[in-house]
Every structure is written in C-alpha cells, then in structure tokens.
C-alpha cells in the first residue's frame, strides 16, 4: 500500500514538473508578454524609455533560463508572483477564485451523476420502448447543447421572465442553482452514454440470464448485478471529465458573471498574464493527478477482483 502510494506521489511530482515546464516554455514562445500588453496599450500612453524601465523593474529583460529557475524557486516556496494585469498577488487571485469554482464543479458533477444515473436507469426500466429510446437519445441532445446558449436561456426564463432566481445579487445558494444546472447538462451526457452502453453490455452476460431465470425482477437485476459491473468504465470517464468541468466553467462563469478559475483563465490567457496562467496550470495538473488517484483507489471498492493482489485496501 505505502509503496504504491509513494510511487504514485513520485509520478504526480513528475507530472506537475512537466506541466509547469511545458507551459513555461509555451508561454515564453508566444509573441509579446503581459508587460507589453499592459503598458504598450494606449490606456497608459507610455513612451519607449518608460516601458524599458518597467521591463527592467519586472526583471523581464533577464534571460529565459534564469527566469525559469526564479519561477521554480518561487513556486516551491509558495510565492506565485503578481498578476500584472490585475495588479494583485496571484495568491490573492487564487483565494478569491478557487472556492467558487470548486463548489460549482463539485455540485455540477454531483448533479451530472444523478442525471446520468437517472437517465440510464429509466432507459432500461421504463416499460414502453418509445420512452426508452427517448431517454436514450437524451445524452446526444445534452452533449450538443451549447453551454452559453443553455445558460442564457435558463437566465431568461427563470430569472428575467418568471423572476424566480435573481441573477444579480443572488443569495449564496440561489447563485449556484442555474450555473450548476447549466454545467451539469453537458457533463452528464458522456457519463450517461458510457453507463448505458455498459449496462447494455452487462445485460447480455450469462449471469444476468441466470439471475433472470431464477426469477429476479428487471429492477433487482439492474441494481444488484448490473450496476456494479457497469460503473467501472464510467468511473474512468468521470476522472477525465474534470477537464470538461474546467472548460464548462469558463463559459458558465462568463455567462452568469461568477468569479472563478474559468473566468480567471480566460482573462489571463487574453492578457498573457503568465504568473496567473502558471499557477492555474499547476493547480489544474494537481487536481487531475489527485482525481485520477482517487479514481484508481476507488476501483477495488467496486470490483472485488481488483482486490485480489492484496495491495490496495480502500
């Protein structure tokens, strides 16, 4: 167990370092930089000598390898630098933007799981074939719905027409209802799709026929025999969907005017705010690593066959 964990943590560190380095190199390769965008913009109307001064004061004129080692050393000591565009420490920016995104993503994901499980179950259990095929086509509809359109539609209906939930100045829970709904729809689609396909597959296995032959009801078979077997690949997909959650958050946060990592990423990319981007990349990589570790540790819980080596006891 502990050897396994140490190995995984070692891998995680390599992944984080690689993410950091690759993003650093890519960001350096872009034309222009945050200082140029900020200070050359007509907004301040500065002359060339003043801009050269500013570049020197930000140490933007030192060589790239030196900058790289500086940044690595700073990150290791928890100093993420300053956001040139916003004019505040990156740490403050993260503190302001991380919690809302974590809430949005977590609740959006949970709702997506509920919706996916609901759709999958109904697509198997509903007695009429046409209702079943209706449920079966829902994931395709969900995945092809543009998030921004859905968000604006929900705002128009529930906030502006029915006036149920204010989008401006909402309470802490009100603020989450529509965005979570918006985010959950596209996330639930691939989950439901994979879940349905696996249920279909497991339903053809001989042991299901045996269970049915012994007199078990469709529902009993689904929950007791099929679900556990069908959930494994879904779990893998769920780990990968984290990336989708971040991407969906960019749009959702912009439409609903929420603060969060999505909006922050968009602004940082637009302004090449490298310090902020590096922090986001490292954070996202860390989140990916952790989520995949959790998923790996969850496999044996659902599938006793994976416990046989005795290595992992969750």
């Amino acid at each position, binding site marked *: 167990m502990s050897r396994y964990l140490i190995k995984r943590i070692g891998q995680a560190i390599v992944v984080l370092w690689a993410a950091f380095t690759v993003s650093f190199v890519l960001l350096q390769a*872009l*034309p*222009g*930089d945050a200082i*140029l*965008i*900020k*200070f*050359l913009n*007509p*907004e*301040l*109307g*500065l*002359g*060339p000598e*003043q*801009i050269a*001064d*500013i570049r020197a*004061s*930000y140490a933007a004129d030192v060589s790239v390898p030196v900058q790289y080692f500086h940044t690595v050393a700073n990150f290791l000591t928890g100093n993420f630098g*300053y*956001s040139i*565009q*916003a*004019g*505040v*420490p990156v740490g*403050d*920016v993260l503190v*302001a*933007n991380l919690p809302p995104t974590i809430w949005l993503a977590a609740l959006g994901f949970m709702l997506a799981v509920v919706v996916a499980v609901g759709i999958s179950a109904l697509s198997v259990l509903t007695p009429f074939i046409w209702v079943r095929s209706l449920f079966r086509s829902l994931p395709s509809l969900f995945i092809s719905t*543009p998030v*921004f*359109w859905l968000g*604006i539609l929900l*705002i*128009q209906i529930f*906030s*502006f027409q029915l*006036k149920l939930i*204010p*989008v*401006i*100045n909402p309470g802490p829970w009100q603020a989450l209802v529509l965005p979570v709904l918006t985010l959950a729809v596209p996330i639930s689609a691939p989950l439901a799709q994979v879940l349905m396909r696996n249920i279909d597959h497991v339903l053809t296995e001989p042991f299901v026929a045996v269970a049915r032959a012994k007199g078990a009801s469709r529902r009993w078979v689904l929950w007791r025999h099929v679900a556990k077997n069908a959930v494994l690949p879904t779990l893998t997909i769920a780990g990968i969907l984290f990336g989708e959650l971040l991407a969906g958050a960019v*749009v959702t946060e*912009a*439409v*609903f*005017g929420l*603060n969060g990592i999505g*909006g*922050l990423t*968009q*602004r940082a*990319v*637009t*302004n*090449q705010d490298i310090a902020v981007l590096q922090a986001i990349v490292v954070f996202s990589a860390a989140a990916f690593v952790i989520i995949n570790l959790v998923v790996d540790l969850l496999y044996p819980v659902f599938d006793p066959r994976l416990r046989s080596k005795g290595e992992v006891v969750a």
Partner: protein
Amino acid sequence: MSLTGRFVNKAGLTARVGVSLLAIGWGQASLAADRNKTPSIGGTLVYLEQQTHTNLYPPAGGFYPNGGILNQITDKLTYQNPQTLEIEPWIAEAWTVNADATEYTFKIRSGITFSDGTPLDAAAVAKNYDTFGRGNRELKLPISEVINNYERSEVLDPLTVKFYFKRSSPGFLQGTSVIGSGLVSLATLSLPYEALGDATKIIGSGPFVVTSETLGRELTLAARKDYNWGPAKLAHQGRAYLDTIKLIVTPEDSVRIGALLAGQADFIRQIQAYDEKQVEDEGYRIHAPSTRGVNNSVVFRPDNPLVADIRVRRALLHATNTDEIVSTLFSHNYPKATSIIARTALGYTDLSSKLTYDIDKAKALLDEAGWKVGSNGLRQKDGQTLDLSAYESLPQPQNKETLQLVAQQWGKIGVKLNVLTGDSGTATVNNLDPSKAPVSPAMVGRADPDVIKSQYYPTNRNVLLQKGGNSDKVKSFVDEKLNSLLESLASEPDRIKRLAIAGEIQSYVIDQAYAIPIFEEPQAFAAAPYVNGIAFEAVGRPSFYDIWLAPRS
C-alpha cells in the same frame, strides 16, 4: 464571449421588433423633470460593469472600468465643467499660472481628509503630482500621460502648493481635472504598483469609499457621510445621495440588459447600438456621453510603402463612406465624424468639406498614382498588389464590423483590406509593425487639445508609427512638420493661439490623409427610469455623486 453575446442579442432584438418607438428627445425631457423633484437620500444602486477593473493607480484610470471606480472614490484638484469645458475650483479653491505656463500655484481648500483620516493638504497634493509627473521607479509607478514637462513641486504653506515645469505646459491645468489625476493618500502612494489592483487599497477623498471587494466579481462602495467638498459650483453640496453602490461585473451583454429590464439592476455600462432600441422601448434611458477626444478613426502607417503615397491615402479616404458605416452599424448616439476630433472637443474645426465620399475621385487618384486594376480585380503596381491589413481593436464598439464594412467599401475601388484578429500578444506586437499593420483603428478620449499630441506624437501613442517611438520596426517615416506642430500645441501658453494650432493640425492630418475619421465615440450606459441625477465627467465616465433613486413605480 462577445461573439456569443452578439448572437443572442440579435436574436433577442428581433423577438422584440414591433414594439412602439420612443421619442429620441426622451433623455433630455426627463433630465429637465429631474430638477423639479427633490432628491431623496439613501438606497443602493446596483451598477453592472462589463469588464473587471485592472490596476487602479490613478493615471491608469483611462480604462473605462477603472475610471468608473476612480471617479467615485477620488477627487481632483480642479473640476472641468462637462458642459462648458471650463476649469472650475474643486480641491483647489484658487490657482495662478505664470505667463509662459511653467509655474502653477494652487490654494487647497481646508478641512479635507482622505477616507483613512489623513489630511488632504499641500504636502499630499505635492506628493501625488511628484509621483504622477515623474513616476516612481522603485515602486514601479509609471508617469501620467496627461502631465507634460513636469519638474518638481514646492509646498509654500500647509495649504499652498506650487508646481514647476521644465518647459511650458499649458495643458496642465486641464490635466489636474482628469480621471488620471485623482488624488490618493500617502499610504496608497507608498504601495508598489503590483498592489494597486486591490480597490480597497485606493484611499481617496471622494464621495464614496470602497468597503469591500470580491476580486474580479464585485465591489461595494459606501457614501462618506462627512463628505463636504464637492466641486464648488455644483448645486449639490455635501454627501452623496446614495448610501451604497454595488458594482457587479457582468460580462455578458444580454445578461446586463436583461437584468436591467427585469429590475435586478439600476444602471449598466456598455450597450451596443443594436441593443439600444430594445432598452428604450421599455421606457429605460440610454445615456451616451461623448468621449470628446480623437474620433474613432482608421489611421495609416506611411512607413509601409503601400500607403506611403499621399494619393493612395487620399483615395482610401474618399472611398470610405462614413454615412453608410454610421447608419448601418450605429445609432444617433454615434455622430458622424467631421474632423479628427469630436465637435464637442476643444479646438474643433469642421473639415467635413474635405471628408467627402467620392468614389470617382478615389479611383482617379489611384490611377494617377499608377495603381491599375489587375485581372483579379485588385489594384496592382510593379508586381505588387494593394493588399492592406488592420488588427481589430477590442475596446472600440463593433470595431471588427466597422473595419469589415470599410474593407467592403475599399473593395469597390480594388483595394483589399484584411481585418485581422489575434490574441492580445500577437495583435499588440504586430500592430507596432507597419509592414504587418499598414492600417490601424484608433481613438482616445480627453477634453483638452493635448489629446491630439497624445495620439500622434512619436513618444506618446504614436498611432502613425513614426521613427523614434514605441516601435523598432519602423524604417524611416517621420513627419517633422506634424511633430513640430504637436510640440507647439503642448507648449503654447496662449489659449487662442493654442486652439489655432489645434485647428492647423486637424487640417494637416486630413490634408495628408493620415487618418480617416469615422464617428464620434460615446460611452453608452442605460438606466432604469427611477434613477435620477445621472452625470458624467467631461469624457464620459459616470459620476454617482448626484444620483438619487425615486420610488419604483
């Protein structure tokens, strides 16, 4: 996001077609009605802003989201009357200027405090201007664009401060009234540049104070109950009428407008021309104060050989149909440009006779310059095609659409204009290269003739990309005559002579066809009917000092 926003807005707009039209003069009529009602104190104004503010160091106040905040929390030495453009007393109750405009003495009003309790006295004013005028390298604070030739300050007594300039600086008095000259406390000035993006750290003496901020999301401003030093000539004295302002960043156009119409917000910034009707049809008011500076224009970079010939530039000027642009893309709030600066700007000269749309003349000029229409329908000369490019400017209203329409119009005389979009880094870098961006959109707002110098002078914004400015890609282009005119504009102490120089520059720029002015750019806001007393400073930033809320009907 803007693309998606536009798509939805257009959909929303067509859905509302058919509702009756409201009279254009509505805004004026209701403003007159405001004066007959007694303002009531109290209430919260919900203000929806399109973009997140950036660094709030006062000289960075030119960015609209920043100006919208700084204008509420800081006071200026002087007040520029937005109607007359005269400079009136504010924090300075009196001033004197020597004959050649190299020495300015200001008498500061007594009893003024910053919101941290420290006094706003001559020493504080001196420190502000020393910082804005010379910058602070240690704290990375850049110098202010509006202060030219600054040398030093001298505190004569606790309430009198004198400024010395290396050369004449006639624009300085107006410069003390602009958003970029907001006075802040010594505590704020001692912070490094990187710390000034936090609005709660900007300590001013204004009618409102930032009480809390959620970075990138919202800002709460509370009225200062002891505020008693508004501009002396305003009818309204004492504290602001509102108790609180809640500024919420709402990037999506349709959400801002929808929230206003649904009663969830009271005042919003940034409405595109195509959304105006939808708002006015519901009885809400559009406010579109002029930015009173250099008009929204297309400028040329003559360093690029394709546009080095004045005949080519003149041809393109006459091939541009500004009437069509204004009537197709904009509304009556966007008047057609008749000079390089707005008609409400100081020193304006009407040049509409030189800015005619004349496609035959345009074709003749190109023929004369040796550009013949080739087999592909484009003008060619010595194996080169008249193929130009311009980068879209994101802050300007519908700039991409404007440039695309210009491209269509130029296409009629066989000239190709590629409208490019890029990430900010690429766009900023390439826009400094005349070979990559021979054409560029340009505009800037400020109610002083100095604005023309800001726009064209090589070491300022350098829109024509002359040699010796912010671009190292320029090979040789310099216009000595233009530059010497600009220098005399910034240093001529005599007001009449100065305005005459401003007129001369406008004619010169158009005669050389360096710029094609398109429209006078406003800042568009919308307000709910019960919001009274909406006011704007001289270049269109809102002031919430006078606003009061009538009972909602």
